[in-house]
């Protein structure tokens, strides 16, 4: 059997190649991080913690603080996720669990198209279509309902945190949807069949079996979307309002880390100014890192919590096993959206 050791050697080499490629990804990030860290050294050492907590951005006196931009980045990404997560995962559930395969194919292509639209086009559209629409119709209507509620205070400008968050949501949804859909598709058919055989409705199958099984992958999809939201540059720059300030109102103009860099990088005229912009990049990288680590912890928590919930559902399913409900065909994908009831 001379082939055995040879194939195990090939195996080792193969695995080494994979590890090398993985390290390649890490190397690129290290390169980017080294680049911004070395460039930002001056601003960070001069400003210290004040660089993070400062609220002034004055290129003339060279006083630089990152807080308003950090706030804007976090707020817009949060708004984007609040909108995008239910819509994105909901669409993925519809596509993989409820729609007929033909509908799912067509809508799937459309969602992929949405993901493919370049961000500069999103920016153009956001500035010339979405912002005027919000300013003239949506924002006044919201203010009429909520009055002086601080979240919606201020003159309706059309641009600001809320608009940027909404545009980001539109950009992030297809990412979340298409990844979630793949994740849901991978849930073994046997899982669905078992739950269905126990008498669960489609909703119960999805809530009790499919989603818990896919939870890890779904959080991965959301993290991928969050990554895009945090770093998005061109589109946000066009609709954020570009005011270096902190405001509680979603209608107020603000700034994000990436938008400041994009607006000012080409004109940064002094080494210290350039260094401060690189400092913003460091803050952004750090934020992404922290949020990622947080999401990872969340996945771990969710994975254990999910298992417990899964147990609950089984108990429920046992109870309802005697309910005389028709058993759908083995392929739920082929069912009409309006289904049995």
């Amino acid at each position, binding site marked *: 059997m001379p082939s055995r050791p040879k194939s195990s050697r090939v195996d080792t*080499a193969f695995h080494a190649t994979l*590890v090398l490629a993985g390290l390649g*990804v890490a190397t690129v990030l290290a390169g980017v991080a080294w680049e911004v860290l070395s460039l930002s050294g001056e601003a960070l050492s001069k400003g210290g913690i004040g660089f993070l907590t400062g609220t002034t951005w004055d290129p003339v006196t060279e006083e630089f603080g990152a807080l308003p931009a950090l706030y804007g980045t976090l707020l817009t990404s949060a708004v984007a996720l609040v909108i995008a997560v239910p819509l994105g995962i909901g669409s993925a559930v519809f596509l993989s669990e409820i729609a007929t395969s033909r509908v799912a194919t067509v809508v799937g292509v459309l969602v992929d198209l949405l993901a493919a639209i*370049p961000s500069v086009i*999103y920016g153009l559209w956001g500035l010339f279509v979405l912002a005027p629409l919000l300013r003239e119709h949506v924002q006044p209507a919201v203010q009429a309902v909520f009055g002086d509620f601080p979240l919606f205070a201020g003159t309706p400008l059309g641009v600001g945190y809320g608009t940027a968050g909404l545009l980001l949501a539109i950009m992030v949804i297809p990412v979340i949807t298409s990844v979630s859909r793949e994740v849901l598709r991978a849930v073994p058919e046997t899982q669905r069949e078992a739950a269905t055989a126990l008498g669960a*409705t489609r909703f119960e199958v999805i809530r009790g079996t499919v989603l818990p099984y896919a939870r890890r992958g779904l959080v991965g999809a959301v993290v991928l979307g969050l990554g895009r939201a945090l770093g998005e540059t061109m589109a946000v720059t066009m609709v954020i309002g570009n005011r270096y300030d902190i405001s509680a109102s979603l209608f107020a103009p603000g700034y994000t880390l990436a938008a400041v860099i994009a607006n000012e990088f080409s004109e940064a005229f002094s080494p210290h100014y350039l260094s401060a912009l690189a400092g913003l990049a460091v803050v*952004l990288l750090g934020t992404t890192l922290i949020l990622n*680590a947080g999401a990872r912890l969340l996945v771990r928590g969710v994975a254990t919590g999910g298992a417990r919930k899964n147990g609950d559902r089984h108990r429920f399913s046992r109870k309802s096993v005697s309910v005389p409900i*028709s058993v759908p065909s083995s392929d739920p994908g082929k069912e009409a959206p309006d289904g049995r009831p």
Partner: protein
Amino acid sequence: MDALEAVRLRPVSPRLGRRRFADRVFRAAVFGAVIVVLMPLAAILGTIVVRGAPALNWDFLTSLPKPVGETGGGVGHAILGTLILALGGLLMAVPVGVPAGVFLASDRMPRLAGAIRMCADVLAGVPSIVVGMFAYTLLVLPFKQFSALAGAFALSVIMLPTIARTTEEVVRLVPSTLTEAALALGAPRWRVMLKVVLPSAGKGVAAGIIAAFSRGAGETAPLMFTAFGSQFLSFSPLQPIAALPLVLFNYAVSPYDDWHAQAWAAALVLAALVLAGNVIARFATARRSS
């Protein structure tokens, strides 16, 4: 749906009625989600078609740009440039990204994989202009020359995490029974990976690559200080090269109506290019895997 079935389906307890109601609400909700998600697509495509179509013709697609005040002129050089840059980016990103994704999915070195996964996610969140700065420092400053090569490299950095993470996700989805069966038959791991896992995940991997291509082709900021842009047709990897998003951006911020019309037309071309590539690749992979 005949009478017999209607009888069979009649709720036997109020509790079942509630469950059915919840089911119906749920179906309506996810259906509504899809509708809401598709609305912006219609709005965006509608806008660029309405505003871009008037300036669009064969000449626009094939000729070189003309200066302000002269009618005609097009973005042929930029269409070609964008294709060269995005394909060049893929050539650099795929050979690293796909094996990296396979490694992340392999679970053989979980701690290292966890660290690399985090790197990929953080890299995906790096603003594109910072990636441009990186490529500029690495490939433009030392050679004192803006180049297509530097632009393609910047795009590859943007594509890399998308490719690695989607590859990981789809490889993970390949049922472990499939892998185990192959391993049980005595096939070595690398062979299982190449002959069983990747082919069955191929469609998903391809989808990830296409998504990366789309994202790369639409990037503006990382090209400003790398590929740089050009008014001329260029095939040299060591010379500045044009790209559609750069042309679009420059025209959109100009003071001239003529250029604004061309900016929308360029947006339409860029969207069509990216979307057509998407659809074609999708059908191609669908046929191959079936």
